[in-house]
């Protein structure tokens, strides 16, 4: 590793405490996905020790870098700080009973097309080209799947794969 890369890495590590300011031992965090895995170690490929559902309140009993050791009743384990929220999620459940677009376990919700009322809005305003553009964008965006984002994170060493 070059000296410059080392310096940058050190500076990024130094910035971690600010990013984690809201998470502290004795504090709480909330799950924000339909399913959140708690791991047996503070590593992305560690075995899953427990699984918790959406909007669960977790008690933080240890902080290690960007990883939190948390507890929800009998469920205990490590979770990457980016996979939990500082505040209880307020997303209202959609018609499928899940939060709108809830994770890759609800891919049909994630790929929701332009709302019909929005499409009608574009028609009424004479914005056919812009409406078509937004629909094209939605198709392109939805083609980038959660699995592809996973692979992107792993190959670029981002998120919990840092």
């Amino acid at each position, binding site marked *: 590793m070059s000296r410059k890369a080392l310096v940058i890495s050190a500076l990024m590590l130094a910035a971690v405490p600010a990013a984690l300011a809201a998470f502290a031992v004795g504090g709480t965090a909330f799950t924000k996905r339909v399913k959140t895995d708690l791991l047996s170690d503070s590593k992305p490929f560690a075995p899953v020790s427990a699984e918790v559902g959406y909007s669960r309140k977790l008690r933080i009993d240890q902080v290690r870098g960007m990883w939190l050791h948390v507890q929800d009743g009998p469920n205990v384990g490590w979770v990457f700080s980016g996979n939990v929220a500082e505040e209880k999620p307020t997303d209202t459940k959609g018609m499928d009973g899940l939060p709108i677009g809830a994770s890759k376990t609800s891919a049909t919700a994630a790929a929701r097309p332009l709302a019909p009322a929005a499409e009608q809005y574009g028609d009424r305003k004479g914005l056919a080209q812009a409406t078509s553009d937004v629909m094209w*964008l939605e198709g392109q965006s939805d083609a980038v799947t959660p699995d592809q984002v996973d692979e992107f994170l792993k190959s670029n060493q981002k*998120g919990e794969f840092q």
Partner: protein
Amino acid sequence: MRRLAVLSLALLAAVPAQAQFSLNLDSLVNTAKDVGKMSKGLAGIGPEEELTIGGSVAIEIASRYGGIVRDEAITRRVNLVGKALARYSSRPNLPWRFGVLGSQTVNAFSAPGGYVFITRGLYDTLGSDDALAAVLSHEITHVARRHALKIIARNDFFSGAMDLASQRSADLQKFDAGIDQITTTLFEKGFDPQTEYEADGGGRGLAITTGYAPGGLRFVLMQLQARGGDPQTTFSTHPPLQERINRLPADPPPP
């Protein structure tokens, strides 16, 4: 009593509504169903409404800023970086969409429901993923913290009208006027400075969590400032560059 209270709320909501959008009051309170929807509008904006607003605002943005650049490679890159960031935001469950607008001005926008846009003029100045992530994370923070929805929600009447419109039972002409008013406010005047600084700080935190350089946004802003960007075409809907730079920690530029 509860029904009476709901009706009273609906009537209270309808009065300023009529003043602003000249809606037909009779049509608003005609059925208990519509009254129920209006009371929901008073309480907040639900997911279906958010997607309807977001889609409508996204169409307006695309229309005003040169359309969407239909380049699959660019769009894929923006979506990979954007969705990586959004995964660690406080609202990972939104159907996030990231696109590049054809305009050569330097700006970025977001709309409720997970729509994020940057202009071609800005995209072309962002070399690294760190710089791109910095801009996208700022906009993601606006959406995640519902900054636009908070402005909309302040107008109780509009919330009610919007809810009705999403069910095709509203005065659509007035709904359109309301959306137009909102987009004009959001994308010509912009958010208030404090909201922008909050998005700068929140975006920096999101970038760090995701693993991008802490100094990405500061670097982008300093680059634009060094180029002597015309305030009319460079982040014209945001506070002055120097003010934003001053409020960010003095992180080094990305590698």
